[in-house]
């Protein structure tokens, strides 16, 4: 057991940092006001191609798909640095983290040839069409239908909260092909297919982030299906286990906490309750960091991650919460134009307990799988 980085890991982190220093524009922090805003999305399009050229977009992918078979630490160090910098990859982080790897594992040869190279080249954005107005935490109750018509499927229904849908080229869609949990299938659907309408939802979390996506008689070929009919549950479970510690939120939370404290010190406002609150928030960030590193360590060793991943999520949610509360109480100006990065962080942080599976659902999993408490009656 040890908690140091290897020289290779340190040097990789330094490489990523200097790439960021070189390629982020000087006014980056003032434009970084939402991961899916117009400015940031346009920037991401150029930036990701450069990352790809520098071998820094998908280093952890197999060489066959443009990577260099680097381990999960490499991917996570990369993710930390990108997230701390305000995620200049925009929505493409999802390709890198889980959509690409899921296609490598479950995609047909044709799907892989069509979709993976543009991801590895930093030239495409995907969106994740899971949640629906009536199916949030209870995702298995989703209603969007995919009915077979000859060799095609016809899709009708609605998705909601879909991030990046405004700029996405392709949707990773869950739709119902028959009743029940095992009646859900995955479709890979170009967003330009006729019958798809995207509507942005104005939100407190920043421009362009969440959308409604309507599917009206959208006809797709059977070859658009990922895996077999009814295999969605199995595939998404694998995919989302990569996502559960996907975003190293603690890293930006910690950085912003330090920035807020520095701000207070400069203004002679760091004392009393602020000291205790900042210290507590810092401890929460470091706890979340170690929890997350523990999961990455398991991933590197090929150990299947269990309920510890849920614990890592919950620890992260509490870190985001404590940092957010600290800023609101002691640096209120941050949310009123005082410090754009602190505001941008706040906007991202408030979704930590909701996006990619609500915290309470993780608590249920921890109670059953980690503590082995008897299950709730259904």
């Amino acid at each position, binding site marked *: *057991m*040890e*908690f*140091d*980085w290897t020289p290779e*890991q340190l040097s990789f982190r330094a490489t990523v940092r200097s790439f960021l220093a070189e390629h982020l524009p000087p006014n980056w922090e003032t434009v970084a006001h939402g991961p899916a805003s117009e400015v940031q999305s346009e920037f991401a399009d150029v930036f990701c191609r450069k990352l790809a050229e520098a071998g820094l977009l998908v280093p952890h992918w197999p060489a066959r798909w443009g990577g260099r078979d680097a381990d999960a*630490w490499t991917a996570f160090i990369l993710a930390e640095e990108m997230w701390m910098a305000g995620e200049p990859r925009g929505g493409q982080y999802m390709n890198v983290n889980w959509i690409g790897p899921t296609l490598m594992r479950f995609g047909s040869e044709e799907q892989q040839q069509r979709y993976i190279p543009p991801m590895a080249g930093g030239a495409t954005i995907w969106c994740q069409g899971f949640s629906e107005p009536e199916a949030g935490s209870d995702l298995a109750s989703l209603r969007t239908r995919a009915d077979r018509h000859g060799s095609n499927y016809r899709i009708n229904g609605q998705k909601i909260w879909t991030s990046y849908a405004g700029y996405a080229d392709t949707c990773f869609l869950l739709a119902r092909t028959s009743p029940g949990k095992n009646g859900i299938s995955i479709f890979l659907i170009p967003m330009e297919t006729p019958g798809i309408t995207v509507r942005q939802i104005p939100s407190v979390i920043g421009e362009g982030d969440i959308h409604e996506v309507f599917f009206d008689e959208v006809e797709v070929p059977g070859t658009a299906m990922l895996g077999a009919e009814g295999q969605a549950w199995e595939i998404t479970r694998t995919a989302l286990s990569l996502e559960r510690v996907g975003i190293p939120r603690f890293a930006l939370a910690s950085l912003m906490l*330090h920035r807020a*404290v520095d701000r207070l*010190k400069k203004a002679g406002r*760091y*004392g009393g309750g602020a*000291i*205790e609150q*900042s*210290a*507590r928030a*810092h*401890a*929460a960030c*470091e*706890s*979340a960091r*170690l*929890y997350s*590193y*523990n999961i*990455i*360590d*398991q991933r590197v*060793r090929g150990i299947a991650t269990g309920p*510890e991943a849920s*614990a890592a999520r*919950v*620890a992260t949610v*509490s870190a985001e919460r404590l940092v957010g509360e600290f800023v609101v109480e002691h640096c209120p100006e941050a949310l009123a134009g005082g410090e754009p990065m602190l505001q941008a962080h706040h906007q991202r942080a408030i979704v930590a307990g909701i996006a990619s599976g609500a915290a*309470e659902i*993780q*608590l*249920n999993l*921890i*109670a*059953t799988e*980690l*503590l*082995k*408490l*008897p*299950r*709730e*009656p259904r």
Partner: protein
Amino acid sequence: MDFTLTSDQTALTDAIDRIAQQFDAKPTDFHGFALSGAALEHQLTEGEYFDIALIPEFGPLTAALAVERLARSAFAAEAALSMLVRPQLPGEWPRPVAVVESGRPGRFVATAKTLIVIDGERISLARPSPGDVEAVESLYAYPMGRLVGSPALTKLSAADAANVRKWMRVALAAEAAGLIQAAIDSTVEHLSIRKQFGRPLGTFQALRHRMAECAVLAGGVRLLARKAAFSGNDGDAALAALHAQDSGTRMAYEMHQMLGAMGMTLEHPLHLWTYRIKALLSELGGRGGQAQAVATHCFGKP
């Protein structure tokens, strides 16, 4: 970054585990407050386990793992300060070690051979003679004692004092990690068996979520304590101690709440862990004290 134990660490923690297992259960006929184990103490001394931090293959991290495991036993021995702080003291100081902070009673003070006497910023060491200390009755589930005499004090340099404070924080966090885990295990067992309204209490989400939150805190205390023991960094130690006292405070309330009246009895072992946790909550200035240390070591001086 590597979260698996080395073979040396595994061998040692297995050995500690074999010893601790004999002392894990509270004797059914014991209905007192403080439960300490002379036999446990003896076995640890015989095996020279109190000095493992000084052995290069083990070091303070392995000592912290041992402290964590021993804290889960119903019988308590003075292990945390001996294993993690004593190796840091300048010169040869015998164990058991105890802390007297601002003249207050402390655990194992009545039987200690070395006292760490804390008065504000000043830390001194003392070898008390039997008349200098006396046992006190308490709720804390450790044998508590206080300093009544005036043994000769050896004042530590500022650097040594800072180092002792740091390792006291690591010791506190490692011990709290074990105590908190034991309290959770004991509560989970109860929630799985005890039925009300026709179902085990553990099926009620209001309790499940609180338990799960506590489990997350417990894991955080464990990870932070281990990291601090590994790095020997002042900031890491302060963060670990703060998270331990913060989580311990919540845990001591939550676990008793989940047990209902059963948790109030001396028959059920829960109080052994919760009241030991409570004994640690006031150390080194409590949460406010740890927060100041975090502010100094992690955020720089204001």
